[in-house]
């Protein structure tokens, strides 16, 4: 059965990350600097998971770390970078330019459409745009379909059903019910269109508490859930904590060279676990990130 009906899916990070097969098609939840599944990303790197085909909309340090660790073979995202703030993603850019990474660049709406096809049990769906762009040429697997009513020819994209979707949520219960704040980005669609969700949550709470907050991803889509406090760090997981701009800057600086990227990975990932990671970040910094909502000034001070 494709639904996951166990009453208790609480497990540890290592066991959860082992559900992601090397060579697998992996959907990354969240986007940009919010709710990226960083604890799982770090654990996949520790496990030396390799040859991943990752798919998502607009991502940043999750993809960049995985690329730096050599974990990704195919990158099918609509964007990888640090916006106008820190600019290009250094490891991603280097690997793409060196030909070490197959960048099968896509569009948010195309990824949405391909996941929807999987969710709807259809082998393909049409998209409105893409014709006339370079993206079309990057994707020999796309086809064409002619509308039987209007006669117009549209680009057809195949259903894309990830083996696993990695999703971080601020809270969830042991059964796997997850509450997210908006924007949900593609997470709802990934949950429905993937074979399984592997989730981390900042806090495991009672079913009652997650239901009152609002269940966005229901338990039966989730194969495993792990309590990973600050599991999205250095990205945000509202309402819990804002993103750690300084830490992201540290990565971007370090990753300017392969040696720097390797040193970062050694320090923050390979030589430690998540408890050790949080110790390196430090309780004082975590309190600052949690304190974003104390006042507009404290929020702005994180970014000034």
């Amino acid at each position, binding site marked *: 059965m494709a639904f996951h009906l166990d009453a208790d899916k609480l497990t540890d990070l290592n066991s959860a990350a082992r559900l992601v097969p090397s060579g697998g098609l992996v959907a990354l939840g969240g986007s940009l600097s919010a709710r990226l599944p960083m604890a799982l990303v770090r654990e996949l790197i520790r496990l030396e998971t390799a040859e991943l085909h990752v798919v998502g909309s607009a991502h940043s340090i999750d993809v960049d770390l995985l690329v730096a660790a050599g974990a990704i073979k195919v990158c099918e995202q*609509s*964007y*990888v970078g640090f916006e106008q*703030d820190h600019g290009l993603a250094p490891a991603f850019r280097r690997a793409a330019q060196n*030909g070490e990474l197959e960048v099968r660049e896509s569009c948010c709406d195309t990824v949405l459409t391909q996941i929807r096809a999987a969710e709807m049990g259809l082998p393909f769906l049409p998209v409105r745009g893409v014709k006339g*762009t370079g993206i079309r040429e990057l994707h020999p697997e796309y086809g064409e379909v002619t509308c039987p009513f209007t006669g117009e*020819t549209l680009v057809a994209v195949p259903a894309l059903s990830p083996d696993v979707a990695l999703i971080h949520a601020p809270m969830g219960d042991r059964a796997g019910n997850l509450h997210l704040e908006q924007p949900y980005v593609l997470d709802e669609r990934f949950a429905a269109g993937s074979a399984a969700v592997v989730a981390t949550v900042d806090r495991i709470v009672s079913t009652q508490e997650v239901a009152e907050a609002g269940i966005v991803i229901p338990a039966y889509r989730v194969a495993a859930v792990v309590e990973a406090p600050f599991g999205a760090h250095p990205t945000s997981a509202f309402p819990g904590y804002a993103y750690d701009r300084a830490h992201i800057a540290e990565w971007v600086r370090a990753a300017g060279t392969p040696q720097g990227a390797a040193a970062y990975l050694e320090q923050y990932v390979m030589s430690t676990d998540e408890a050790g990671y949080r110790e390196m970040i430090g309780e004082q910094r975590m309190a600052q990130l949690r304190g974003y909502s104390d006042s507009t000034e404290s929020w702005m001070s994180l970014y000034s």
Partner: protein
Amino acid sequence: MKFTFDEWFVVELARTIRDGEVTFHGFASPCAQVAMHLAKRTHAPNMMLIEGAMYAVNPTPAFIPPTGNDAVLKQGAVYSMRFEEFFDAAVRGDIDRMFLSGIQIDRYGNANLTAVGGMPRPKVKIGGGGGGCNVSATVRHLSIWSTNHRTGRCLVSACDFITDVGHRTPAGTRAELGYTGGGPDWMVTELGIFDFHEGRARLRRIFPDVAVEELEAATAFDLEVAADLTEVDPPERSQIEWVRKLDPIGIRRNEFRPQELQRTFGL
């Protein structure tokens, strides 16, 4: 009142919005983002403002943060669209205006957000186009902008890679491609402002500290100039005040090379 070029640039982006339009900006676009909030607070109070990566409707954020999906950006919004709700609306033609940029832009308004040198082996791999590859086809009007016109490498004769479609691509015109959106109607750069005449960019306004020859030299395609070319109208004092109030950290400045931030003007 003294003001800086980044402030004026945001005002010019805001002026491309008409009151009552449903308007959207992508992530990594702080100038467009501030411009939308500015328009909503000034000449376009009835526009529907969809806040980039949050999909929040008509929020009133206390400040603009450095990333597109910070929760401050949904302050004051009673409703946020789901991701798919926005993209469906954009694809079926319910979004009136979207802001788009690119590392390369050609005279037809095609934009490259993917790679200098093209794919699959890029010379410089940049971030990527987000959702533009589909929605540039169907959104009713596109406001294009660049803060890198002066480099001479942005307004190119042909994009190395077309991520978002303008008025025509080598594969055909919008009509030939079956695209329902109207394409770009304005392009704002740090040197001047273009409209699109018969699907080609045409210089309509030039900033007062820029010479036409200078702008022409920075433009790799043949420069078409409107018969009524004039200087850009100065901003209003209240517009500059709103820019400062809406973006107190100055996130908009991240889009400019240092020399542009030195340009100051008086009112």
